[in-house]
């Protein structure tokens, strides 16, 4: 049985729409943390939003949610991974959009804004999965600069930003900037392996 981290939902009740939340996790608990963050947003708060997938293809993520009985058909996925795989963009889900590469950061921002302009939800989030995946492709300084732009853009528009991050896989400069720009932290990064 899949067990959610209920404390995350509790912490999320304390953030406002113009917040930027850094959610730290480890490699082994990343999906538990992701699902525990996404579910309250969709089910309890009735929010719509954009899920930016840089760590895995959107289909894999959608199917992972479906396997635990979560309907994400109202969430729009911006897939930064699958265009790099031949045939990867031929997907059966109408809520999946693509950007050619995770290095096209400005395109990611503009595509997200475009999707939000078409959103029928009153309250929306942008969910970045994940900062450490973006740091594989992007120069530290550019990614740090981007986070500044990205977070402020959505704060200004009252769109909640949620940024998943595995801290020990993120360069110090990016991590420092993330700590600086985010207004809240949910830390599930310390995973004790028994």
């Amino acid at each position, binding site marked *: 049985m899949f067990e959610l981290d209920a404390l995350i939902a509790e912490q999320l009740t304390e953030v406002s729409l113009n917040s930027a939340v850094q959610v730290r996790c480890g490699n082994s608990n990343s999906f538990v943390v992701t699902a525990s963050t996404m579910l309250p947003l969709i089910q309890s708060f009735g929010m719509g939003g954009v899920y930016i997938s840089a760590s895995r293809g959107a289909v894999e993520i959608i199917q992972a949610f479906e396997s635990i009985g979560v309907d994400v058909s109202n969430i729009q996925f911006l897939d930064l991974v699958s265009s790099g795989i031949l045939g990867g963009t031929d997907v059966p889900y109408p809520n999946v959009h693509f950007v050619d590469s995770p*290095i096209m950061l400005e395109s990611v921002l503009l595509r997200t804004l475009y999707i939000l302009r078409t959103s029928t939800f009153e309250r929306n989030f942008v969910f970045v999965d994940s900062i450490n995946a973006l740091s594989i492709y992007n120069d530290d300084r550019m990614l740090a600069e981007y986070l500044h732009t990205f977070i402020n853009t959505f704060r200004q528009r009252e769109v909640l930003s949620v940024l998943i991050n595995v801290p020990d896989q993120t360069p110090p400069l990016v991590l420092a900037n993330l700590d600086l720009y985010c207004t809240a932290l949910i830390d599930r990064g310390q995973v004790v392996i028994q």
Partner: protein
Amino acid sequence: MMPSSVYTRDRCVTGIHGLDEILRGGIPYGSTVLAAGTCGSGKTTLAMEFLVRGALAGEACAHFTATEPSVKLLENIRQYSFFDMNMVDTGLINVFDVDVLYSWLGLDKATFDLDDVHALIKAIVDIVNTIGVTRLVIDSVTTLCYKIKSEQLIRDFLFTLGKKLATLGCTTVLISEITSATENAHWSSFGVEEAIADGIIVMGDVERMGHLLRFLQVVKMRGTAHSRAKHSIELTQLGVMLTPMLKWGAVSDQQSRWGA
């Protein structure tokens, strides 16, 4: 002592997401703006959206197409949800094939002389005047000027056309095809268009690790204190969208930290 009020020129609000912010309110009315760009950079889409936003505000608009037949142009632009074919049907957006215009004027020759150029200017100005056009696009001025062999005549053509259109209160976008949009490039094909124009908007691509990112940069716009920063653009169903290009990502690969 500071002046009590600062004079600002009335603006033609483009309605394009982000562009009016860059221009600090829009293009000064009656300006002739050169939209210079490489192939695939989004010039035609930007120009067409400029007309659509005007038409939505009730303005009469005209598009002279010299690079592709109007039927093909409209077919391509119909894919965008900001465009509505009704605007053409109801005469808010008027699309003219330059080839047809040449036939009307009897200009079926390989090169134009002074009289031909004056006839062409008169035809365009008459159309603008008759319909009451306030937004005009010529796509492209490069193709139009191919038949004018003298640099002086090209200069006269653009200067006279721009002056007459400005008198009529028409804001004009002249599309210019260029092969490179780098720092050292010319922003026009014949070298004279950029000197005549009141404004220059450059569009091109920045290569980042093998991927092309479209950019737009306003390098000149008389009558407004505009931003001169490079902006990244996306052509979406809802129209052109812009955001400032990342400073660490605006350099080409050869100059960047990844090295050549």
